[in-house]
Structures are given as C-alpha cells and as structure tokens.
C-alpha cells in the first residue's frame, strides 16, 4: 500500500487535508478499498479512544493550589528579597536557604543584569532554580554575608583549624581551602541540605573586599534530592576551566576539580581571583 496514501488517511482522520478534491478522492478510496477503509477506521478509532479516555484529566486541586501559592509567594519574596529577617542565619545553619528567596536571587543576578552576562553564562545561570540548587543557595548566602546577616561559625585564618572545624561539624568530604596572597581566610560555616553537611568559607581583604566560597562534591550536585545543579551547567563545567558571571561590581566564578564543584562570590572583580582560587584548587 502506498505510504503517502496511508499517511493522507491519517491526515484525513485529523481533518488536516485542506484540498477538497483530495479529500473527496480519499473518501472514495475508503469506501472502495478494504485496506484503506480499515486504515481509516483504525486511525479515527484510536483517536476517539484516546480523547474519550484521557482528555478529561484534571490537575489535582492540591497541586494547583501549591503552584499558585508558590508563584504568589515568589512575587512577594522577589520584592523583599533584600530584607532577610534576623533569623536568617539560623535558617542557614539548618537549611541553607529560604525557598522563594532563592529563585529571586538568581533572578537578581541572571535577569536584572542579564545584559552584563555573556549569553551562554546568562542562559546557564537562568536554568538554576529550586531551594536545593547550589547556585541559588550560594547567591542567597553571599547576599546575607554582604548584608552582615551571616557570620562565620568559626572565625579563624588558620587553614588546619578551619579544616578540622568543617570535619568535626560533619562535612564528609575533604574541603580545599586555597591560600591566596591577596586575601585572608576569615572563617567557616557549615550548612546542611537533605541530611548532608557542606563547607562554606569566607575570605577578606583590604577595602572591605569579601570573598565567599562554597564547595560540594560533584555527586551531590548531580542529585536532584541534594544540592542539584542543572545538567547543562555541570556539562559546561566539565569542559571549561570556569564560568564567570559579572554583576556590576560583584562577580562569581563556578568551576570544578576532580570531585568537587566550587562557587566563589566576591563583592569586587579582580583578575587575580582565578589564579588565586581556581588554579589553587585544580
């Protein structure tokens, strides 16, 4: 049987034949040719069956309410995202981010200033969403640090002391703590997400320069239930030295070494940042 005719029968069943004369020919074939008649019956029959059985599916009310509530909250939080409560530090210790603030902070970085990003960086950053997302969390934490609402749990410039603190606080991986020449380690914070502990460090330098470093194992970042990152971003990092996002005076770098992903946020932009931090961790 001619394939074109059979596919035209499908189009006929879908009322997609625009040419009236062709339509007439096809109906003629349906009447006079058993196989074509069967084809038409099957195509129309399956179509009807699908529509009858499944077209009435509705979204569960609970889900609909959850989504609309999430979106409404997001609009509220987006307005207020720079006004974290004083309890935010506590929230960081137990759960690194407040859900809706997170999305908005990414928007703050990725959307409002998207004209300063390279297209690729902008696109990759826009894909990061959800309260568990590492970039979303890092953005929120950096904002809190800059606002003075998040202070190190351990204030020390001693590398070994910081490593011990992170280990003793439950961080299971061995954190890399660079020792830059231009900036000094200020301390550490440990956060928890989905039962796992993560290492955060703050560096400082002259002129109120603040650097925030968040590192996590690749395996956690690939897990949707833990610190997830979009697959596109993970793939990008696998093939590039780093991803840089600039935002006015601020900048952030994202990179990975063999088993960890790093996010560095700074309230300034200096060309020494990659060599001092990224090269040191590779």
């Amino acid at each position, binding site marked *: 049987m001619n394939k074109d005719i059979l596919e035209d029968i499908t189009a006929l069943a879908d009322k997609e034949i625009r040419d009236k004369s062709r339509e007439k020919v096809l109906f003629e074939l349906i009447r006079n040719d*058993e196989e074509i008649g069967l084809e038409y019956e099957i195509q129309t029959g*399956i179509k009807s069956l*699908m529509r009858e059985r499944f*077209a009435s*599916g509705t979204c569960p009310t609970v889900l609909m309410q959850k989504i609309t509530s999430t979106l409404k909250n997001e609009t509220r939080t987006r307005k207020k995202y720079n006004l974290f409560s004083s309890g935010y530090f506590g929230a960081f210790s137990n759960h690194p981010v407040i859900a809706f603030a997170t999305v908005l902070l990414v928007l703050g970085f990725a959307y*409002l200033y998207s004209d300063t990003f390279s297209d690729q960086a902008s696109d990759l950053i*826009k894909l990061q969403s959800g309260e568990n997302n590492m970039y979303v969390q890092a953005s929120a934490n950096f904002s809190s640090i800059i606002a003075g609402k998040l202070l190190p749990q351990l204030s020390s410039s001693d590398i070994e002391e910081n490593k011990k603190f992170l280990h003793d606080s439950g961080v299971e991986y061995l954190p890399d703590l660079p020792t830059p020449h231009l900036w000094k380690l200020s301390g550490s914070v440990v956060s928890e997400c989905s039962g796992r502990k993560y290492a955060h460090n703050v560096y400082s330098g002259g002129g109120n320069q603040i650097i925030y470093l968040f590192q996590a194992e690749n395996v956690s970042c690939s897990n949707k239930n833990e610190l997830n990152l979009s697959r596109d971003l993970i793939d990008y990092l696998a093939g590039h030295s780093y991803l840089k996002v600039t935002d006015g005076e601020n900048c952030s770098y994202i990179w990975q070494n063999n088993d960890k992903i790093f996010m560095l946020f700074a309230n300034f932009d200096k060309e020494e940042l990659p060599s001092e931090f990224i090269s040191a961790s590779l």
Partner: protein
Amino acid sequence: MFTVESQRDDKALQQLYKEFEVEAIPHMDAIYNFALKMTGDPDTADDLVQDTYLKAFRFFEKFEKGTNCKAWLFRILKNSFINDYRKNVKEPDKVDYEDVQNFYENIKASDIKGSHVVQDDFSNLLDDEISSALSSLPEDFRTVIILSDIEGFTYEEIADFVDCPVGTVRSRLHRARKMLYSKLYKYAGERGFINKESSQ
C-alpha cells in the same frame, strides 16, 4: 543596587503575575495531563508541572503576548522533561515498530470489515491498560498522540512544538496509532475481547 532594581520592578511584577494568571494558569489541567502521560508517574508529573510553571513565570516576560501560551507551556515542559526527568523515568518495554508493521500487515481487512473494531473490541479495556499501551510507545510517537488526540493541537502546532516538519508529525501520528492499535489488539485478545465472529 538590587534594592533599587527590585523596588522599581514591584508594580511590573504584580502586573506580570496577573497576566500569568490569565494566560498560563488555565492550561494547568492540560499541562498536568501531558506530564502524567509522559512520565507515567503522578509524583514525577507533579514535580514536572511545578518546575514548568516556575520556569514559565520566570521567563514570562519573554513570552510573546497574543501567541499560543498553551504551546509555549508545553515546550517548556518538554524541555524540562528532556533535561531533568527523562533519565529518571522508568521506561516500560517499548514497542518495536518493525514488529508492529509485521503484525499490522497480517491483519486481514476482511477479518474485521464492518466492525467498529476500536470501539467494540477496545471499549472494555481498562484505562490502565490503555495508559500502559500509550506509555510503551517511543517518546516521539507518544508525544504526538498526546498532543494531537488528547490535547487537540493541529499538525502545525505540534510541528512547532516538537521542532520538526508537518510531514513528520503526520508520519509519526500514522505510525503511532498503528503501534497503539497493535498493542491494544494484543491486550484485548488476551482478555477475550476480540470477537471475530461478531464482526463477520
């Protein structure tokens, strides 16, 4: 700096949400239905729909007003599904089109001529059985069936949605319905619903 920008955007944000409520929220049933059919799992479908709407809201400023919002939402959902969910979905045994072709060519039109084969023989099948047959189709084929037969999109809309020529949509639909038919025919046969005598 963020504060200035966010305050400047307050009113715009509220307006944006109002427009989103009118344009996008009404399509939630269709989006959920599609997510459920694509994933075959209610919990995963819930997550997928939530992700879709969150992304849609984030990118709503990019949506061209007056164009097909439903198709736009479906496109976001499809991308989310491909990027984040597909690898986690347990795929049922897939239908092999070659097998279907052989099966189909062996059906004699005279065996079933005059019967309303689909309506009569398949009407007693359970929704779960039909769902299972649909899930067994390869993703490209399942997608066109859902979009055409369940959601009522035109070929042109589907072509835009799946990013392929209209001719490919037509061809996939043709083959997809054949595959579904063969699968359902098998189910119906196993359950004794195929009654050839009555169709003579």
